[in-house]
């Protein structure tokens, strides 16, 4: 793919500082890296990704305390592993940024949730699930965020046609939702699905 080539050609000889730190701590874990247009980027496998993220957050040379953005990209037909989870991190104390990418195959689109490392990822992961259908393991409340519960499919996948129309939401009794919300809010351990 063309993107790959561009990444390889712009790769400088010397290894940037943050990438070097990760390489030293986790040898062989970084499968690709580049500093295309000045954005330092590493790609890591999803197995054991939580260790790498915990290291990035806690190490005194990294200290990435701000989770800036979490999203995914769908490379349908362009790459072997279809999805890629993209996380942007920023360190407020040290001022540097890092982009971490995790390839996720289409057959089993699940990754570990980062919820125990950064509280901010909660809604970002829900949105990612909503739009791309990635499953975040151990996320406490993985529901659709932007779209409604009876929506079929994940609209930002490349095989979702832009003009596809979904059936209108039928009118339903207010009472049904109200009773459901009452049950769920009063007992947080309730894992009931919302009424469609």
């Amino acid at each position, binding site marked *: 793919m063309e993107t790959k080539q561009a990444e390889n050609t712009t790769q400088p000889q010397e290894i940037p500082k943050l990438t070097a730190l990760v390489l030293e701590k986790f040898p062989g874990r970084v499968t690709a890296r580049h500093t295309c247009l000045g954005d330092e980027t590493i790609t890591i496998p999803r197995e054991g990704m939580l260790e790498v993220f915990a290291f990035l957050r806690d190490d005194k040379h990294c200290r990435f305390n701000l989770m800036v953005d979490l999203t995914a*990209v769908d490379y349908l037909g362009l790459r072997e592993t279809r999805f890629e989870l993209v996380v942007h991190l920023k360190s*407020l104390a040290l001022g540097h940024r890092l982009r971490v990418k995790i390839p996720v195959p289409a057959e089993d689109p699940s990754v570990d949730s980062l919820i125990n490392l950064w509280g*901010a990822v909660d809604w970002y992961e829900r949105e990612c699930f909503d739009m791309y259908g990635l499953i975040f393991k151990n996320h406490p409340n993985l529901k659709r965020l932007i779209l409604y519960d009876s929506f079929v499919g994940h609209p930002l996948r490349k095989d979702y046609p832009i003009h596809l129309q979904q059936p209108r939401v039928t009118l339903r009794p207010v009472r049904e939702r109200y009773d459901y919300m009452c049950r769920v*809010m009063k007992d947080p351990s309730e894992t009931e699905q919302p009424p469609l």
Partner: protein
Amino acid sequence: MKRLKPLEFGAEPMLIEIGPSHPATHGINRLSTLIDGEVVVGMDVEMGFLHRGFEKESENSTYVQVVPYTDRLNYVSPLLNNLAYSMTVEKLFGLEVPRRAQYARVIMGEVTRVCDHLTCNGAMAMEFGAMTVFLWFIKAREYLWELLDEVTGARLTVNWTRFGGNANDLPDGFLTMLEERLKKVEDVLTEGEKMLFKNKIFIDRLKGIGIIPRERAIELGFTGPMLRATGEPYDVRRAEPYLVYDELDFEIPVGETGDCWDRFLVRNEEMRQSIHIVRQAADKLPPGDYINRQRNAWIPDKSEVYGSIEGLIDHFKIIMEGSTPPPGEVYHAIEGGNGELGFYLVSDGTGKPYKCRLRPPCLNYVAALPEMTIGHYVGDIVPIFGSINMIAGELER
């Protein structure tokens, strides 16, 4: 979903649905609130009522066609969205922006930031019945919108930046008009401060409400005025200077506790600082071109299109296929009205973005709304919701 233990009144907690269509939700948002007496013990926020599929639409548009869509993201500060998107594309293309265009962008961007904060603070005051302040602030915003109208041709949907510069130069007599308007806005700000800063009712309703401490705010991904109100001096303009912010002198106001009152004060002082920045930039405004006329990115003027074969070809190529950047990926962030406003673009070398993602600053704030609200009274939901400056267009895209 978060909730407290029920109070010891023996009464069942009651669920009330606030919104989706409620005047205090500033747009459409549903707050399912569980109350015990008058105290909020649980809350679930439902959003998505204004989702327009910005990302999907962008993936099917050429790069320049996305600029008008960005106006509709944060519709209180549309020009800053234009700016964030254009600067990301420029980073991808490797385009230089002429210095005059950069100064003009700083001036217009800061004017827009003042509009944003005026709306937020005005609306916050209105929600306690201080209608006067709201009307004054909206009057001041109108002065600035007329200024935007003069330059861009539209009050709200400005669509002003292009790749490598701006759509047009600042018009004749702009600087005089700017100074006159800034004076008027400053007068309004002073009036507002006199009205509110010693108003016991107003301060009591805001102080100690909706506190998020510094560490927790960083953990929750807060940026912008919400983070600065907790005492963390993070401002993208200072931390990673873009445009010509490193040549301008300004201060970053910070709060102490991170409650609603601090957020109000931070926004108020930021308006003063923005006006200060605009004055400096207007003084230093250099002569020169307003756009980088580089082929492939610049849409040629009509005289060029009808007068030369190269112009015609460029015009045709850009309109039909779009400007083609090199393949790659890029993230660029600016300080938006609400916080760090970043765009993440993936290019596959064609004229349309393969992926166009906006990092919405107010998503984190709305996600933290239950945490800020639980334990307070129902009446406090309104100031807390006002202080986070939720803009549905940006939140739901």
